[in-house]
């Protein structure tokens, strides 16, 4: 049932050319160089250390690795991470 709704949403957004991150509540990641990353539509932090940050989203867990990672801000919708980013990974 859930899968069906998801498929319908995808088709609808494709047909009506609506942004998928809004319709399907998917994360939107913006990376500035390798020093700043902002992630919209997160579902909470799973792990946070200086070198690894794991953030839960609707597309699975996003794993960010790097050095001296700092969470600049954390809001209900958005997380901004600064530091030297090496790797952005989707774990599903």
């Amino acid at each position, binding site marked *: 049932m859930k899968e069906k709704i998801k498929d319908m949403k995808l088709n609808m957004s494709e047909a009506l050319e609506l942004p998928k991150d809004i319709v399907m509540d998917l994360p939107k990641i913006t990376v500035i160089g390798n020093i700043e990353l902002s992630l919209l539509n997160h579902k909470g932090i799973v792990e*946070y250390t200086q070198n690894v940050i794991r953030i839960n989203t609707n597309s699975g867990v996003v794993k960010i690795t790097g050095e001296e990672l700092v969470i600049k801000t954390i809001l209900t919708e958005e997380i901004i991470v600064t530091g030297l980013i090496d790797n952005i990974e989707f774990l599903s």
Partner: protein
Amino acid sequence: MLAIKIWNYLRGYVIIRIEGLTLEKFLNLVAKENIYIWDIRRIDYTIVEAKVSIEGFKSLRNIVRKVKCKVYAYEKRGLPFLMGKMKKRKMLGIGFIIFLGIIFFLTSFIWEIEILGNEKIDDTKIKNILKEENIYEGVLRYKIDEDNAKNVLLEKINTFSFVSIDIEGTKLIVEVKEQDIPPENISDDTPCNIVADKKGIIKKVIAKNGKSVVKEGDVVNKGQILITGIIKNDRFEGEMLVHAEGEVYAVTRYTHTVEEPIEKSIKEETGNSYEHREYKFGKKIIKFGSADIPFKEYIEEVEENNVFTIEPFNFPISIITHKYKEVEVKKVKQNVDSLKESCQVLAVKEINKVLPEDSKIVSKDVKYIENEDKLTTIVIIEVMENIGKKQIITY
């Protein structure tokens, strides 16, 4: 970003440290509760540091209860905390207010009166007139009626053609413009004599009105009557008073003496110099280094540099550099003939300064007196000029 930082500083924030094992849960709850938290940094495996506003810090308590972690304020920053500190040190605040008060109080007085542009009239005379109008050093500047003082000055000293009074900070600047003193106007019907303005030998008397009492060749002194306005008539008894008018030309003498040593000492720089600095704060001078000058004969050069001048503010701090240049004194014997000439030119120039405009030069005489080491030059110029001056007859 800077604006946000300043805003946060003004509102005040707390750097907190959170200790616990499930810190991610804590962060998620903070985000869910809409508490603004920023600059989250992992310090240790069990410690996270973050910044949070004062209101946010208060509402963190509920979350702490749920997550079972320890939160404590590590550092407090911002204006509200600074104000709190100030409340404890009341005397500092009072002192600051007193300081501002004193500055305000002192700048509301006039501390200096500067008078510009006056040549013939004394500063003290102007100051005395201003004092009568309640303007003096130490008066409240709000009490000064500039327009009134201006009018009074113009009225009392009639040689002023222009007066302006400006207040610049604690300084009162009076700027005046003098016109030439007008000759005493004697109307045509007041009886008067014509008297000699200076000593001289009479050459010509043209009496248009009145009776001349001197003749050619007479030597007159200053103040002597030349054309009298008192006419004694044989037919009438008593005297008739008239307004004497006329011109009296006389030969007057102007002399000027110039003394010049024949042997002149010339200072020659040797190239050695010595510098010495002073710091000046207002009128106080602080000297650095020794002020002993290692030369016997020297020329001093003074240079003043204003260090802190940011227009239009002029801070009275400056560095004065004294430069002493060693000199060698040499005595040189001058050529007497050329010295004579230069002295004569100098003397004639001096006389020309005092000669009246309408005078005619009759003769010029130059005398040189040569002593052992001195040359005295005397220049005598005789001119013909009008020496008559009107003087009201007084009884």
